[in-house]
């Protein structure tokens, strides 16, 4: 059995860990509020963008001449996966959930004999993937220095993707991120951004005919690269809200666990102190009796 001194040390150490996790929880809660707000504020833009693109793609008469970013290259040989994770740890299952989802997908692709390329956004994803898929990672982007998700960063990632697409380095691009549902639930998502999925369009809403200036193709050519950055940005916003949410609940759990542990250790400490006192008393009494 641990001595009294050891127990005392453990209790203080658990207590100070608890203080840290509690502070982290508070910080995450404050950040979560901000991240959630900006995720909500960013939604109209991506929704509008999507609507316009749906309208445009419906207006395109000749699918053959449609921009490749919309219709794809016609092949599905090389898959590019953009795995978006956080730069910091201690956020529960946040990163592992995305990685798990991504790894399942990777497995399927490789089983079908297709080629796989990976871009990791955020250093945690890179850490977890490089052991198994190190040779597949072609780029690693991390925004450790930016405080919040901003459009400028998203554009950087978007530009990398478009550049690679134009060089025909891949046929299909999928992004992986966590969608923020609420503080305790984040849903890992796989979203195909090239070619764009336009089939989910609600036909009823799209009956309006538009005037296009210049023609549809040209607008689409201008718009689609922007849409990629927008989708990435949306994913980044969702991700940062999810990250803070996941961290908050993870730290809440940790704080509670630490509290339980302190209680348990305190009981153990008191018992062994009492045992020591009783032992001393018995020694004294039996010593006196033997006289």
């Amino acid at each position: 059995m641990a001595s009294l001194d050891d127990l005392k040390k453990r209790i203080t150490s658990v207590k100070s860990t608890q203080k840290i996790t509690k502070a982290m929880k508070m910080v995450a809660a404050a950040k979560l509020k901000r991240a959630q707000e900006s995720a909500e504020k960013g939604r109209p833009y991506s929704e509008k963008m999507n609507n316009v693109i749906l309208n445009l793609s419906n207006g395109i008469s000749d699918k053959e001449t449609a921009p490749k970013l919309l219709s794809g290259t016609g092949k599905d040989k090389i898959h590019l996966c953009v795995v978006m994770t956080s730069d910091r740890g201690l956020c529960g299952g946040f990163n592992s959930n995305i990685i798990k989802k991504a790894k399942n997908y990777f497995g399927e692709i490789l089983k079908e004999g297709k080629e796989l390329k990976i871009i990791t956004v955020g250093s945690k994803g890179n850490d977890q993937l490089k052991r198994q898929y190190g040779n597949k990672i072609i780029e690693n982007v991390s925004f450790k220095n930016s405080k919040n998700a901003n459009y400028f960063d998203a554009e950087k990632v978007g530009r990398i993707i478009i550049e690679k697409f134009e060089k025909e380095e891949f046929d299909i691009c999928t992004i992986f991120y966590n969608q923020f549902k609420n503080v305790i639930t984040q849903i890992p998502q796989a979203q195909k951004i090239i070619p764009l999925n336009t089939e989910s369009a609600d036909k009823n809403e799209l009956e309006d005919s538009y005037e296009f200036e210049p023609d549809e193709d040209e607008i689409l050519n201008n718009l689609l690269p922007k849409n990629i950055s927008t989708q990435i940005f949306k994913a980044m916003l969702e991700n940062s809200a999810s990250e803070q949410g996941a961290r908050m609940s993870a730290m809440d759990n940790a704080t509670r666990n630490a509290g339980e542990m302190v209680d348990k250790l305190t009981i153990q400490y008191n018992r062994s102190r009492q045992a020591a006192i009783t032992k001393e008393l018995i020694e004294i009494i039996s010593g006196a009796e033997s006289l």
Partner: protein
Amino acid sequence: MSEEFKVEIVNPEASFLSKEDVTEVIVPAFEGEMGILKDHISIISFLKPGILIIYTKSGEHKFYVEDGIFEFKNNNLSVLTSSIFDLKKIEKSMLMNLIKLAEEEASKEDIDDQSRFLIDQKIEVLKSLN
């Protein structure tokens, strides 16, 4: 009948501006400036660098935009742009900075005609503001 329609300007980070009492908007569309009044036909087009002017009953507002698209539908004008500045709030130093960046871009050799056109346009507009 009122002559007013609704304008909404959104950028990726937030909704930038929303107005209900707009009488006319001048947008720097790709193929030339375009005035939009109420009951304009549904239209989609994209923007080139320029000045976007919104006229309301209470006066006019001017904005500098770099790129983006706009959509007019059912008397609802939505402008999607990633870079827009209120001319009243834009500062001289920021303007100079933008000009410098644009000139750097323009001095590059390997850009195609369309981006060359856009960048020249940008410099021109920025200089006229200065």
